[in-house]
């Protein structure tokens, strides 16, 4: 499995386990996009996994907001046209 999807699945599991199923669903909707099957999505997948880890240990508003901010950023970037390849 591509590294980005692997990390995202871990994040989805953590976030879902913390009771934030809406956020987890929003991430699930992104996981099959090229962004996460390429290496381009790895950094954000890494970040949201770390934020998910924090959320699973402490379901504070601050940690929920941190995850939500990253989910929004992922939704924005995963569809951005103009990926440069050459």
């Amino acid at each position, binding site marked *: 499995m591509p590294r980005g999807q692997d990390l995202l699945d871990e994040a989805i599991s953590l976030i879902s386990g913390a009771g934030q199923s809406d956020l987890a669903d929003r991430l699930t909707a992104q996981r099959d996009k*090229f*962004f996460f099957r*390429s*290496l381009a999505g790895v*950094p954000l997948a890494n970040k949201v996994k770390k934020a998910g880890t924090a959320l699973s240990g402490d379901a504070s508003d601050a940690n929920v907001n941190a995850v939500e901010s990253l989910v929004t950023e992922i939704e924005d970037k995963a569809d951005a046209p*103009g990926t*440069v*390849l*050459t």
Partner: protein
Amino acid sequence: MTSDVYFMDARSDSADTSLIAKTTTVFDAAGLDKLISPGDVVAIKLHCGEWNSSAYLRPVYARAIADRVKELGGRPFVCDTTTLTYSPFSSRATELDLLLTAERNGYSSAVLGCPFIVADGYVGTSDYRVDIPEGYLLKEAYVAQAIAAADVLITLTHFKGHGMGVIGGALKNLGIGAQSKRGKFNVHMGGHPKYGVGAAVEFDENYVVDKENDSEWELIEDACPIGLFEIQEDNTIKWDRDKCMTCLGCLGVMNPRGIFEPNQMLFDATDIAIGDAALGVVKTVPKVGFVTLAIDVSPKCDCAGFSDTPIVPNLGVFASTDPVAIDQACVDAVTASPGLPGSLSEEMGVDEAGERKFDLAGAAIEGLSEQTTINTAVVNGLGSRDYELHHVEPVGREKFRFPYDERPTRKRLGKMFEKFQPFPFDRHEGRGYDRLPEVDIEAVKPHDGPTVGTHAHAAYHGDGTSHGPNGHGAPENQWHPGEEGTRSHSTTHEH
């Protein structure tokens, strides 16, 4: 066979250890000066940077080499080539666009001291076809005309990562950068029955675009310069894939939406083809040398319309007559270096010294290798991965003085200062300026802020306007915009 690579690191504490001086110092140390005979036309090929990229080489490096070429009696020009369309909004796909981009990025004849040329013409069809029977995949290449016509090619390269090529080094500067647009289609596998986009990519024609959530869905049709995509009435997409040139203009539109499946084979084949096309250039130009600056090592190429934080610290300047050896030396130097904190190398988890960086931090998809192009260029006989790294010593700062007037200060400025004395000796008893005799210096050095209060006559309040002691506006003895020239020449103005 072991090739020689000459190297100076990126540290500097004097004129002769500046990166500009080191560029010409390694140039000479590697014997590239010996390539140039009086009257030779010398192409200096570089990447002038895409619109909004910022890690590309500053023009002064090309200027320094152009000046050295002129010293040697050569006739230099600096050049780049038109690109594939490769995104809906590329900025260098025609000569017109490339020149506008180059000038914005600082590349012009006035800056370089020699012409800046788009080597493959207005559209990118000015080229020279060369057979390469030794090629591993390609059997011909199309070298940009101005490069093919030159007596000498100096390949001036900014070493960095690349989404498709994995690394952007000397080989890519030849195998992509020195190809015409027609040649770039060849290298990117346009029309290839197995590796081209039209043949290799899995295409979801039933993908239904959610137009309400995708404001740029029209790009699906407009991303192809020859109109091979057509949205049907039932929202399916018709793609005339047999005619696909592999210009890559649509990948950034299709891939993120899942209309195309990522295709590693296309990327790998292109990386191989780069090594072959590089051979085509070396076979075409009689004399070729390489200078590579491994500085601002951004993870993605200068062809991206942005430049991310470098993945490693600045490493230095390399020169060689072997493009394979110089690329391998650069890859090895990046591998040996620790990654920069906060960069993509850290985010990808490859920031330890000794870890390969580009396979993850450079490539756009997994499974590519930073060695593919280098290894191909070994197989086709272009060069050697084995090299001896020669550490070059500085050659003395005298050589790098300001060349237009080398006289010391008094001889150069004495008479001018007699006529236009810039220091107002006639004011304040010869001390020139209105200043306090002494202040508490230590009071403004603490890192947590000053230990004295705000001055009662503080003139700047942080709101972008000036407030003098007489209220809003400029007081009598403040700076008057537009009058600075008058004041600097005046010796009688009193306050």
